[in-house]
């Protein structure tokens, strides 16, 4: 009986021993490698992690790199994994290590200091040391959210005007500069096309409370808002839900999505969606762009690259089934002006 159990226990030992023998020779011609570390949201979060990974994959496709071998991702289970995961890729000497979002600021600062020869990219944030200086081996990609929001505002204003309504709304997550720049662009966009239109502004206070997001949307819709631009992450889903529920009851109200094309989130009946359009942050374009630069030896380390309308960093979706051709054309006109630099969009809302 004892011998049988011993035999059972021996199996892992044998397995280990045999794998030690099988030291594979590594392929020598080294391809360009990119590693993405996700935050706790995971690779399929339908948001930043997923978007960035899509950009990295698009880069791999274009450069004929192998997904899984040359470009890969590490998912984090807890915040305590961020630094070890960044370090693991650095130990692997990946050519570029990417992490999305400002949650990574601290971990990336530490990793970049520890591995000064390693190239890092942070998406939608800026990594700086305690004196506020940028780090030489970290590229920072940020987005001109105010420009894209201007277009969202123009679309909302034109839609309200076309349908004879006089109020639109804005629901933000938390009131700090990054989110306020959406508000600034939106307000300016509405004012440009429909100066008499009233704009309601509310902040949820977080990015997670969908219930409160919906309550604020109900309040604004109740006060006559026709279109609401939500910049509140998970809480913003409540805004879309409220618009959806009202549309289903033939009370026509619209929501504008954020970060990615949220058209599908607003679908309520026979394929109709309550999402008017979306202000997209093209994290995929940013990731792909910086990876391409790094591959060509032009890694923008230590600098902050702004992804704006001009370089396809922000913008409305290519197709907007809920906007008339006329509105789309007018919005495109504003986009061209902003790209050309003849129209400037404010970064902070004007105080009232």
């Amino acid at each position, binding site marked *: *009986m004892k011998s*049988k*159990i011993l035999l*059972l*226990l021996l*199996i*892992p030992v044998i*397995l*280990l021993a*045999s*794998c*030690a023998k*099988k*030291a*594979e020779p590594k392929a020598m011609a080294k391809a360009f490698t990119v590693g993405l570390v996700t*935050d*706790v949201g995971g690779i399929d979060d339908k948001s930043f992690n997923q978007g960035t990974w899509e950009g990295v994959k698009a880069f791999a496709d274009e450069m004929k790199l192998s997904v*899984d*071998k040359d470009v*890969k*991702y*590490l*998912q984090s*289970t*807890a*915040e*305590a*994994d961020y*630094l*070890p*995961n960044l*370090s*693991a*890729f650095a*130990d*692997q000497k990946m050519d570029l290590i990417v992490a999305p979002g*400002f*949650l990574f*600021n*601290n971990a990336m600062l530490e990793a970049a200091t*520890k591995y000064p020869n390693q190239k890092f990219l942070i998406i939608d944030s800026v990594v700086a040391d305690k004196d506020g200086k940028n780090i030489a081996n970290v590229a920072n990609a940020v987005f001109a959210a105010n420009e894209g929001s201007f277009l969202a505002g123009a679309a909302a204003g034109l839609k309200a005007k076309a349908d004879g309504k006089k109020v639109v709304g804005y629901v933000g997550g*938390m009131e*700090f500069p990054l989110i306020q720049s959406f508000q600034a662009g939106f307000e300016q966009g509405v004012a440009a096309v429909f100066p008499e239109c009233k704009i309601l502004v509310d902040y949820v206070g977080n990015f997670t409370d969908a219930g409160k997001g919906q309550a604020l949307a109900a309040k604004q819709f109740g006060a006559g808002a026709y279109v609401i631009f939500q910049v509140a992450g998970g809480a913003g889903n409540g805004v879309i839900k409220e618009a959806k529920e009202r549309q289903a009851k033939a009370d026509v109200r619209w929501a504008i999505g954020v970060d990615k094309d949220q058209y599908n989130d607003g679908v309520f009946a026979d394929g109709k969606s309550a999402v008017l359009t979306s202000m997209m942050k093209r994290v995929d374009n940013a990731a792909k762009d910086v990876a391409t630069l790094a591959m060509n030896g032009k890694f923008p380390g230590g600098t902050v690259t702004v992804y704006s309308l001009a370089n396809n960093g922000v913008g409305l979706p290519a197709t907007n089934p809920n906007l008339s051709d006329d509105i789309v054309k007018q919005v495109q006109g504003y986009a061209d002006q902003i790209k050309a630099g003849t129209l400037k969009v404010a970064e902070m809302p004007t105080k009232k």
Partner: protein
Amino acid sequence: MANKRNAVLVPLIAILGGFVLGALVVLGTGRDPLVMFSAMFQASTGINPATGGYNPRLVGEFLVQVMPIMLTGLSVAFAFRSGLFNIGAEGQLIAGSTASIGVALFVHAPPGLHQLLILLAGMAAGGLWGALPGWLKARFNVHEVVVTIMMNYVAFYLNNWMVLKVYGTIDGIKTVKFPESAVLRDSFLSSITNGSQFHWGFVPVLLAVAVSWFLVEKTTFGFGLRAVGFNKEGARYAGMKVEASIVWSMAIAGAFAGLAGSIITIGTFSFGRVLPGMEGYGMDGIAVALVGANTAVGVFLAAILFGALKAAQTIMQVNSIPKEIASIIQASIVLFIAMKLGIDYLLARLSRKAERADGEGSKP
């Protein structure tokens, strides 16, 4: 005799079963299970079996993974010895963390004393968070499972509210950095582990294991707790204070989890955090306690195993094996442990057969 042997054998067989199942899943997804085993080996020893390279950073990160789940494991195991199922280690951990942030930011003390105060504050807060469900159980017979689960959420949201509104954040998700006197990480430990997050938290963790073992196995107090666990009414009949035992048991269990919160806050991190979600240390603790058969020594070993599995996730992913495989292994180990009765039965049959064979062999 057979029982004692099975107490060691059953977990071993369960662990083996978990690994075999994990290997089968890897095989089923068309990858090489040897890569997985080598990743686990590398994650816990720092040695890369393929290249022979050694990276002490991995050992450091491995130990960082072990520390909190060893404490939450102790927490669950300790409560279980007096018949209580502590699902609330997660919340007690968060409560400990919240209190630690406060002491780290707003109390000024010399290094050494400051860290000690922080750890004590974490243990006190965690203890309180555990004692409340204990008291509700003892006084009103409210089931501790329900209360502790709910208190997890209370702790979670209370932490985020405290950090946002009371302590104040610099960017909406974290507080300013703690002063040097408040952290457990230092350049010495970092340098010997090639810049890992390894920190002095391992000292209180080891002390906690020793204290837990001593309390449960060697003191009259611990005997009382165990007696309550075996048979509450029997213990009451024998003149033991059952209600007090329950409250104390949960308080001490909570203190272990609270300590885990402290060492994560001032060890792994050096700033207070708004939590994006529960981080699962409490759930890992339940698994660790189960596999460790609710003894201090068992928890010590099981935490090392589960820590290795957690640490292996990174290396596995680097080698293109999904990290979920490690979770599958963890879960199946727990599952196999839960099949203890079946394994006991199989072992008994095996040994009966062996005896019979022996008996026949010796006859002539």
